[in-house]
């Protein structure tokens, strides 16, 4: 059984904006029956503003939830603002997706891009490039983009995000080459920016709060403890341990081995968690 967040379950059981807008200004059709998921996104656009969005999806719970989330996110946005939405934003809107299901959020981003390209009457960028994974028809450009955007390091991660390599496995060597290529370029570029992801402090605080709420607090509460976020300064995350945790001799271990590890996994891997005393 997958561990879906409540938000994913909510958007799956009661999806919003199901349907197809007639004479839509922008239509994005991605995926296929063979691949196991497909999404048709239709947008009603007036004066460069997306006033309505509807979807039809064939796929699993996370594909349906990602589609529902996407339509909610873009409604009311100017087209150029909507174009900035990434798959990570969609996953974040849903409180996270299991890593094996990240490709569902990528499908959402691809459908959005296709719909906007259709509206603007320009060809799609990702349709170009050479097919790397023949099982799922994924091109090198798509793979490279996912590696860059989501900072992927292993073939398994690339498969989770793009499906490439999830079939016969023949392309695994080529995928590794693409990872090496992109990561070599990006380390050169990214080091001066401190950390692999560009994120505003506000975004960072929001994500840290979400992880605390969703994963960390429930675990601490089981032992009669609690945790509060005090401040975020660059990579320094200042927290205060409450309840049983405050007086627990093992609180430092909890902080480093558990809280910091979780936050590094889910937010940015350079975070340093300190206790506010």
């Amino acid at each position, binding site marked *: 059984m997958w561990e879906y967040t409540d938000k994913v379950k909510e958007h799956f059981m009661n999806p919003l904006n199901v349907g197809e807008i007639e004479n839509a200004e922008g239509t994005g059709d991605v995926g296929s029956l063979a691949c*196991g998921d497909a999404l048709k996104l239709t947008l009603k656009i007036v004066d460069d503003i997306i006033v309505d969005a509807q979807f039809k999806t064939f796929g699993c719970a996370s594909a349906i939830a990602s589609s529902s989330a996407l339509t909610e996110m873009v409604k009311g946005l100017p087209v150029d603002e909507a174009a900035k939405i990434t798959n990570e934003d969609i996953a974040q809107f849903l409180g996270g997706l299991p890593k094996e299901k990240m490709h569902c959020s990528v499908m959402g981003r691809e459908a959005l891009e296709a719909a906007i390209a259709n509206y603007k009457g320009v060809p799609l960028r990702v349709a170009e490039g050479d097919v790397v994974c023949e099982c799922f028809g994924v091109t090198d450009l798509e793979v490279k983009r996912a590696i860059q955007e989501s900072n992927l390091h292993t073939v398994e991660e690339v498969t989770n995000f793009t499906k490439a390599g999830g079939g016969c496995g023949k392309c695994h060597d080529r995928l590794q080459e693409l990872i090496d290529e992109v990561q070599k370029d990006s380390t050169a570029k990214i080091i001066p920016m401190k950390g692999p992801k560009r994120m505003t402090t506000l975004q960072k605080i929001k994500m840290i709060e979400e992880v605390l709420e969703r994963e960390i607090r429930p675990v601490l509460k089981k032992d009669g403890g609690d945790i509060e976020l005090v401040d975020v300064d660059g990579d320094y995350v200042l927290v205060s341990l409450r309840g049983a945790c405050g007086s627990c001799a093992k609180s430092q271990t909890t902080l480093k081995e558990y809280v910091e590890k979780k936050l590094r996994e889910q937010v940015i891997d350079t975070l340093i968690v300190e206790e506010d005393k």
Partner: protein
Amino acid sequence: MTNIIYMDNNATTRVAPEVVDVMMPYFSEQYGNPSSMHNFGGKVMSAVSEARDKIAALLGADADEIVFTSCGTESDSTALLSALKSNPDKRHIVTTRVEHPAIKNLAENLRSLTGHKYRVTQLSVASDGTLDLDEYEKALDDETAIVSIMWANNETGVIFPIEKMCKMAKDRDILFHTDAVQAVGKIPINLKEIPIDFLSLSGHKLHAPKGIGVLYVRRGTPFAPFMIGGHQEHGRRGGTENVASIVGLGKACELAAAHMAEENDQVRKLRDKLEKNLLESVPNAILNGHKNDRLPNTSNISFEYVEGESILLHMDAFGICASSGSACTSGSLEPSHVLRAMGVPFTAAHGSIRFSLSIYNTEEEVDFVIEKIPAIIENLRAMSPFWQDREK
């Protein structure tokens, strides 16, 4: 909590209450080691022997042909590796494309990890999941060390002609193994009449607990142990016996032997009612697997143009438990290897649902499922971009 309607018995079964009862003393007062010299341990050894007799009786085997293992997978690995060890000059394995991963992945690993020292023939299946005996005949050759063919398929319930296939292998002096995990307890098996060398079974598929399996090894068949250690199981499987589970499996086999005919009748009736109604009330619903050569409890139905995980999760909201062969439920990205081997088109493979019943299911439960499924499929189809366009 919603009531659970459990129709996933090919995944695992409820431990029968009678089985739980006989197991309990071996978690508390009867904690002796069956290998001990004292009478306290000796009493436990008697319980293990008694269980061994009951299991042998269900299979038409002798007690000394029963080797306890930890699960079906261990039994499978033991059988295959033993056959290869005792036939060092033969490097060919014959199996099918629709085996459980316990055999399929083992055979494929033997091929790739040994740098193709072993040759593996995986027999194909027809669109109804049945094997072609001519293809099988041609696959057997002088290099074949062992044939491993499941008795019944876990996904479709299709039963293979094991008696014939075993005879064909034995005529050429080839060892024959069958993974009978889904068959034991569901259909009659008599090893007195079929010269099978190795047979695997798993306790938790027949209302015994998880963590106990059996490998039947025919007397006289060369054997090399997989777990090497103490003298337990006459040196065929080291490790202190899982006494409580062995006693439980004995009871489960006794129950299966006593009630198989009537239970099969009851389960088959419920399965047929469920299947008939779903196929009639849901358009574009297709049965996967041969209609007759099939376990009485299994029904694998594809609902075209919708995806299995979504169906399962909506069923789950009503407490209905089943499985799917869709890609999304497996953690891999491709639908079930069984359905693909059968050539089930992607439109149907992704939307396949396996219902597997047991004696604990009731007619009310079947009626409830018949009532709920059509609306679930209809809702998901209304959301599917392919449903409306299917005519095009």
